[in-house]
Each structure stands twice: as C-alpha cells, then as structure tokens.
C-alpha cells in the first residue's frame, strides 16, 4: 500500500491514473474516442482556454487569481474586429487592431498589478471589479452589438487557416504559446524570480528580486494571454461582441484546479495548467460521446472536479506533508475548554 500511495503522491502518478481511468471507460463505451480526429478536435476545443490557462498560471503561482479573463478576451476581440472593419480589412487595420488590443490588455494588467501590490487589495476583488468594468467598456465601445467580420483576409486566417494543411492555427498558436510560457517559467531569470516570489516573497526581496515588479509583469502576461485568446476567438467566429468568450473564466479556473495547481502559489508548472485544460476538454468530449444529456453536464463536471481535487489533495497530503507537518508544530488538536 505504501508504494501505491507513493506513486499516487507525485503529480505524474495522479495524472496517469486519471488518464487510465478515462481510457478504460471510453474503451468500454465509445471506441470512437481513440480516433486521431477526436484528439485533434479536443486539442482545438481546449486551445483557447489553454492559452488563457497558461497566462493565468503566472498569477496563480503568486497566490493570486484573475476573474476578468472572459471580459478581456471580449475586449480584444471587439477592438480587433472594429479596427479591421473600419479599415476595410487591410493588413494595416489588422495590425493596428492587434496592437491596440494588446495595449489595452497591458493597461488592464498594469492596473491589476498596481492595485494588488501597492494598494494591497486581494486579487479576487480587484479582478472581479475589472471584470465588470471591462464588460461595461466593451458594451460602450460596441454599443452592445456584435461586429461582423465579412472579409476572408488575414483576420480570417488567424483563426481558421491550417498550417501545413492539417493543423488549425489556434492549435499552433496554443502549442507555441505553451512552449513560450514553459521557456519563460523554466528557463528565464524572470521565471525563477516568479517561483521564488510565489514561495516566499520576503526571502526573494532579500535576494534582490523586485517582487512588486514580478507580480506586475505576471498580471500583464495573464491579461495578454486572455487578449490573444479573444482575438483568435473573434477570427474563428468571424464576429465579436460583449458576450464573446462569455464564462471562460469558469473553464480556465477549472483547468487550473483540476491540473493539480495549488491556489496558494509557489507550486506547479505549465504542464499542470495544460493537463488541466486537456482534462476539461476530454471530460466535455466524453460527456458528448457517451451521450450524457446536456442537462446533466454541469452536475457531472462539478462531481469530477471534486473527485480530481480530493484525490490530488489526499495523496499529496498523505505521501509527503501530513505526517512531517504534524511533528514539527505543537499538537494541533487541544481539548476544547468549553
């Protein structure tokens, strides 16, 4: 038994067990699951909130959260669509649209960073407020209507073109973005600083890490990822408006949680975020392939999240932390005086 708990202890053990369970279920009920076209459709389905999950990872590693990813995506989608439409779908219009959108993301990211570090407001409240504000701004800018994208020019290619004829652009961008985030986190000095600040901000300060700067940049990266997701969505749907990417923060948060990331910060990597997004995608795909009536999907998703997270929490506490922690601190449980 000891070895099994050990195996389940490390993250890869958990991920493998979950995947094996899924494979067994699908082998029994719906063999089509194993078709290559199914995997590419899952990858396409998760590529958008996969990109956002990679961005959100930077913030979660610092113990923060970003609820405004959905509204940010709607903002950049609308900006891109409107700038393309107004410029007659020229390449210049497309470029300005992209730059404008990203600039708006950077601005909101900076606002998040400043409010969380210098004004010490919890990230939950800041991003909840900006979610409302950004949605309001998008409503104002688009007048509440959807902007149609008629032309099949470069804007269309962004979301619908296929690299080497087979791989859709959103998947390509998702894979590139995931690699980029992995490199930033794993290979750059900024990545090292991010993990240090997430694990112990005071110690990082004493080692020369500008913690406030790191937090600010990670909120900007999270906003930019949401923005990129929004732009791809606009081009895939050939339209953009205030409710584009509605409710995406729910999927991204679920991906974070199911991916085994600990929301208090300091732990987890791009692989965890991607696995989380993949798992969410696979679950949705399974529910449809198994013919689960749509009314039950929310219920099943909730139960699966609880199961995945409890498994993750139970095993990691059992195999590493729990016993060690108990001896270090004085006995937690003392008799209640009342």
């Amino acid at each position, binding site marked *: 038994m000891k070895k099994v708990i050990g195996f389940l202890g490390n993250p890869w053990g958990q991920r493998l067990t979950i995947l094996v369970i899924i494979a067994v279920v699908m082998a029994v009920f*719906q063999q089509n699951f194993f078709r290559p076209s199914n995997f590419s459709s899952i990858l396409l389905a998760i590529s958008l909130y996969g990109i956002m999950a990679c961005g959100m990872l930077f913030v979660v590693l610092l113990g923060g959260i970003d609820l405004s990813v959905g509204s940010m995506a709607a903002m950049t989608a609308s900006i891109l669509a409107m700038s393309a439409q107004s410029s007659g779908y020229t390449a210049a219009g497309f470029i300005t649209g992209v730059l404008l959108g990203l600039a708006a993301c950077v601005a909101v990211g900076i606002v998040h960073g400043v409010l969380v570090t210098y004004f010490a407001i919890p990230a939950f409240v800041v991003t909840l407020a900006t979610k409302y504000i950004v949605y309001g701004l998008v409503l104002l800018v688009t007048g509440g209507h959807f902007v149609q994208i008629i032309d099949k020019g470069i804007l269309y290619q962004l979301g619908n073109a296929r690299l080497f004829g087979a791989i859709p652009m959103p998947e390509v961008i998702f894979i590139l973005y995931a690699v980029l985030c992995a490199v930033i986190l794993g290979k750059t000095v900024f990545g090292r600083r991010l993990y240090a600040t997430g694990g112990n901000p005071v110690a990082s300060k004493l080692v020369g890490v500008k913690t406030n700067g790191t937090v600010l940049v990670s909120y900007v990266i999270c906003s930019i990822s949401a923005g990129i997701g929004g732009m791809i969505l606009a081009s*895939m749907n*050939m*339209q953009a408006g205030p409710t584009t990417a*509605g409710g995406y923060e729910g999927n991204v948060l679920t991906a974070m949680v199911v991916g085994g990331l600990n929301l208090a910060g300091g732990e987890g990597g791009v692989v965890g975020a991607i696995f989380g997004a993949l798992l969410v995608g696979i679950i949705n795909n399974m529910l449809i392939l198994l013919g689960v009536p*749509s*009314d039950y999907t929310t219920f099943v998703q909730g139960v699966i999240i609880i199961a995945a997270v409890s498994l993750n929490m139970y095993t990691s506490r059992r195999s590493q932390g729990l016993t060690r922690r108990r001896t270090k601190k004085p006995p937690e449980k003392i008799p209640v005086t009342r």
Partner: protein
Amino acid sequence: MKKVKRALTLILLVLTVAALLASCTGNTATTTPGTPPSASAGASPSGGGTESGQAGAGKLGGGKDIYNDPVKIAWIPLSTAGQVNQVIDLVWKDAVRIYPNVTITAFDPGYDINKQISMINEAITDKYDAIMLLAMDTAACNDAITQAEKAGIPVLTVDCGATAVHTFHLQGTDYGSGQLAGQVVAKALNNTGSYLVLDAPAEQKAIGRMGAGFIDYMNASTQCKMLEDVSIPNWSQENANTTMRDLLTKYQPGQLQAVYCASDDIAMGALQAIQAAGRDKEGIILYGNVGYLPVLNAIKAGQIYGTNYSDTYAHFYTVFHMALYFIETGTTAVTAGYTATPVVYDTLIPVDKSNVDYIMSVSRYAYVQGQ
C-alpha cells in the same frame, strides 16, 4: 510613500462621488422626467401628418393622444448584446423619428431573470405607457406582468411569451420555425434518415422552442430518426463548433443525414466543424434559424441547405405599432377583460438556394451590414 497612497485613494473616492453627481445631474437634461405626464384625457385631436396616412384618426378612445402627448415605452429584451439587437435598435430609431413624442427606453437584464423582473417593476413605478418584453422564463415574469396590467400598462411580449394573461403576444420564430424547418428538411430527406438537433442552451430551451418544434414535426409526420438533441451553451458559435466536431467523431459518415440548428450562430459553428472534419462532401443538410447575413451567404454558396427567415425589422415594427394602438385606445388585458392572451403569428419564409438572392435584397440585415 504611504501618505501618497492614502491621498490618492481619498482623491479617487471624491472623484467618483463627483462623477456620480455629474453623470446623474448632467444626464437629466436629456431625458424629460422632470415634467409630469400630462394626463391629457381631453387633448384635442391634432391632425399632425403621420406617415401611415391615418389622417384625422386622432384619439380612438380612453388612452392618450399618441401624436402629441409624451409617450414612454419600455423595451426589455433578454440582453442587449446579441445579433438581432442591431436591427431592433434600427427599428426604434426609425419609429422615434416618425413619432418624436415617443421615447423608447431599452433595458439590459444581461440574461439575469431577477434583473428582468426588477426592470418590469421599474417600468410600472416610472409609469411607462407600454412594456415590450422578451420574457426570459415563461412563468417567472407572470407576477410582474399581471401587476403591470393591473396598473394600466399594456404588456406586449415578443417571441418568448408568458403564461400569464397579458395584452398581446407576437409569436415569432421559435416553435413555428421548428415545425416549418421540419417540413423543409423532411422533404429534402424524403422522409427517411437520421438527424441531429443542436438546440438552445439547456436552461433556455423553454423560451427557444425551435428544437421542440422540429422534433415534434419529425416524430409526428416522418420516419426520420433523431440521433441526439444537444444543447449549445451560450448560443455561441465556438461551442457549436467543438460540440459538432465531437458528434462527427461519434457518428461516422453515413450515420448522419441532417443537422437542425436552433440559431444561425450555431449553424455557422456546425458548418465550420463539418468543413474542418472534411465531411462537407457528404451532403449533410444543415438548417438554421432567423436568417443572419453570414448564413444567407453560406446558403448562396450551397454550404448550408437553408434557414427560416423572418423579417425582424417588420416583426418589431409591428409590435411597436400594436403598443401605440393599445396606448391610444387605453386597452389592457384587464380593461378589455381578456381571458387569454391574443397571439399573432409572424410570417416565416423558408430560405434556400432558390430564393436566397431575393431575400438578401429585401433583408434589413444586408442593409445593416452594408453601413
């Protein structure tokens, strides 16, 4: 540093209060709440020229003079963000241009049932003359609707009605559209084959009954077999795309002959999925609803079989005129003693390759897109 932050926060707080004051007071200039509504029972009929040639009709009966008295109409949709709203705003602009004394206030519940109910209450408190409503739930708004009717405010519902008795209901595109689509698709499949339905979001199926209409028709008068009725969250195109791709994995070539989509967004999503899976050669019949421009173009290109086109512009223009009529005659379900809500069915035109050019020339959508 600390003093700077504290000062900054205080200034910001004062600024918001000032902005509040400015935005509210500044705003009052445009609307005219200040002047009490002239309960002009006996306003003299003014022969002001009206576009629709109702010269001299003046006042029919107990209500207001819709040509001169200030009239306030509330428009409460599911949410103002959406495809169809562009045309609706166009209708209100044209309507107000013709009847300058009428102001139409658009609310935005943002798909939240509690906000919609409080907006209906708001309209009652502010003594609007009529409420045009797209009910979010067939039963939840009943109480508010009956209160409005009792307060002498006619409630006109559009597309999504309510079970409570109210003044007028214009049955739009949903159940009827499903039935009509059933006819067209059944003919195309000559009554055999299996189909999929990409339906409204699970919680909104009650107010978007296209899927139900389609399935009822298919079961009643054809041998077509329904494979699945899948709801698409948020009516969004990308969700339709991913769901359709999964369904295509499930149903291999030959197992699927037709797909009925509850809205044109969903139809475009399904089309993208079919093209991406390289199965557009199989001749799967795709049928949409409402008739947005992108779908009309796809029909022209032969990628989508057809859709039900309803002239949204005329649709809402009718509701506006009915509202004026009720205001003018002062009739509500209570005063007229209705025991059931009078329902008028809107015209639906099935569009396919043959008449798509004609429809595009007539459709307000093209006009709107072309701006």
